[in-house]
């Protein structure tokens, strides 16, 4: 208890720390938002709740890591992870997801849960269990007597995340495939009647989701560390964010992601970093609780 009071007193004595926490939180949140964004896509379009979301993120991280080990600038890892993970996502769709898509909720949950375990173990076998990261060696920008520090690598990473997010939003709004995806999400049968190849749309969506996650992972490995079993943390957070924002609102997912990142950083500052995961889960409970209270039966679709 003393510790919590002490931590709160730090926030009051050094108001600038609040800004620092929000900046850190928003930067972390931007990456959570990407994973959540992919989840919202898959959830909204094919009603599959993908529990392997975080493992896609970590797998993307390893793609970038391998690239930097080969002596190539890890920044190129972001587009490469996007492409590689798209391919992996497409294969996973064809092998697993397509078989569970029409089944009930639990079949798809079990299938993706199994997928998550398998991916984590595979990565453990391939890359070892040590935590790894890529150091870009860029400088850090410092403000306010060094209390606020923004590593340039982080800034680049978050910038790339923003570009990716905007590109996907535009793609969904403008492109033919984006329209088809949204149409399938609204009513798959009607879409099929109107000549949309929904199987193709599903495969595309799942591939796109894996690719977004992969790019997020490639960014994460440049600013934090990854380890084969870290996926679950990103999965949980993606679920919290999507649940909070709702499926019908992709830009909302991003806003919720940023807010969630900041909330988590505040929680970690006050209660201690050891409770970060717990804070994420408590936020999920709170979100579910308020959603239940609202009980608005309006049907939500992907827009």
């Amino acid at each position: 208890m003393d510790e919590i009071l002490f931590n709160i007193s730090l926030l009051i004595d050094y108001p600038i720390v609040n800004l620092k926490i929000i900046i850190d939180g928003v930067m972390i949140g931007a990456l959570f938002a990407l994973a959540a964004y992919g989840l919202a896509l898959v959830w909204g379009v094919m009603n599959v709740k993908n529990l392997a979301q975080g493992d896609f993120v970590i797998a993307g991280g390893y793609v970038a890591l391998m690239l930097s080990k080969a002596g190539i600038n890890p920044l190129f890892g972001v587009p490469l992870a996007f492409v590689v993970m798209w391919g992996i996502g497409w294969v996973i769709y064809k092998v697993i997801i397509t078989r569970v898509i029409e089944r009930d909720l639990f079949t798809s949950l079990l299938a993706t849960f199994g997928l998550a375990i398998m991916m984590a173990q595979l990565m453990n076998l391939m890359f070892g269990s040590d935590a790894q990261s890529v150091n870009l060696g860029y400088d850090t920008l410092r403000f306010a007597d060094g209390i606020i520090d923004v590593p340039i690598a982080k800034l680049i990473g978050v910038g790339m995340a923003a570009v990716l997010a905007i590109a996907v939003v535009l793609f969904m709004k403008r492109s033919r495939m984006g329209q088809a995806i949204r149409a399938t999400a609204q009513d798959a049968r009607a879409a099929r009647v109107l000549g949309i190849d929904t199987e193709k749309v599903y495969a595309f969506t799942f591939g796109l989701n894996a690719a977004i996650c992969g790019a997020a992972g490639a960014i994460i490995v440049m600013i934090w560390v990854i380890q084969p079993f870290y996926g679950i943390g990103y999965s949980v957070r993606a679920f919290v964010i999507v649940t909070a924002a709702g499926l019908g609102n992709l830009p909302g997912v991003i806003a919720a992601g940023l807010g969630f990142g900041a909330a988590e950083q505040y929680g970690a500052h006050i209660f201690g970093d050891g409770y970060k995961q717990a804070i994420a889960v408590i936020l999920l409970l709170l979100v579910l609780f308020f959603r239940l209270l609202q009980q608005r039966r309006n049907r939500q679709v992907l827009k």
Partner: protein
Amino acid sequence: MRTTLFSVATLAFGALGSSAIAMDCETITLGAAISLTGKYSTDGVHTQKGYEFAIQKIKDDGGVKIGDKCYNFNVVYYDDESKGDRGATLAERLINQDGVQYMLGPYSSGLTTAIAPVTEKYEIPMVEAEGASRSLFNKGYKNLFAVLSTSEQYLASAITLAAEMAKAEGKDPSEVTVAIAVENDPFSLDVRAGVVDDAARFGMKIVIDEKLPRDLSDMTGILTKVKLVKPDVLIVSGHAKGAATAVRQIGEQGVSVPMIAMTHCESADVVGNFGDFAENLLCSTQWSETLTYEDPIFGTASNYHEEFKAANADYADKTVPYQVAQASAAVYVFKDAFERAGSLDKAALRDAIAATDLMTFYGGIKFAPEGNNIAKPMVLRQIQGGEYKVVAPSAFASDKLVWPRP
């Protein structure tokens, strides 16, 4: 005493009786369940290589002499797949099916915790080299001996060092403030307990005491607090991920603390990964090849280091990890104990191991009644110019501590 003398005598006569003494030594079979696959496989292989190197060295040196017979060690290995339940099953199998009477330890505290009850049940003496958790040594085991320092000692010496530095500056050690960030797992909590005990001994104040989550990838929150509170010592322990995250973010955030000490610098390869960020950090280690320890079989620590590299091509261009050295030291303890016991009887051997008082290339070995080694201090190395330099304990140090850290 009489029985020991008698048994030595019978052995000696027995050897003479078989007239033409075989030139080849006989074999003493040891057993080991070790992690050759799974999450500990890297370190499991280090351990096995350490065992095998020592066995070869002892063989080259004329083997284990009991009476006037000589013996060589041979180890039956099983792969425990880094799983505790598997380790325990394999220990049963080694003892019951393979008839092993003496055991070498597995890798990690977890596996040792799983196997120790089995060896205890069958009263099989086990010398282990890779399980440091202090919970292993408060269960009253009579047949478990560890050559390495226990985990609460890992960073406690940093506190002593900080106290020395404070005194040298004319300050009282009780003015020193300590920040602790450790993972919430048995090993790191042991490390923390050792630091807290030592800090209390000097009357130091612990200003930050945080737990790191298991899936740690970000500790900016803690480091921000460190920047605000400005402690004199920062202690970090969270396996390789803790070291990697801490070093990266200490550098990025420009955290300036006079002394920063952590575990697992080597396994996180903080120098290779983060270069300048790692400069002047203190890292704890069980052993370093630059120490001035020495023994008649392996020679000096640096001699061991060179010969091991020569014998194992895949270590040629890297520093031999301490996991290898301590595994070799465990085999050496067996040789020494067999020779003093003068018999192959496991009870006599157990008593001889308990009475071990040996200087080795790895450091002194003398067991407390609980089985942990009390003769070897933990070593603190400081990263200076990208290299690990021993700075404590001062008696064996090769370099001077850079303090305060800029």
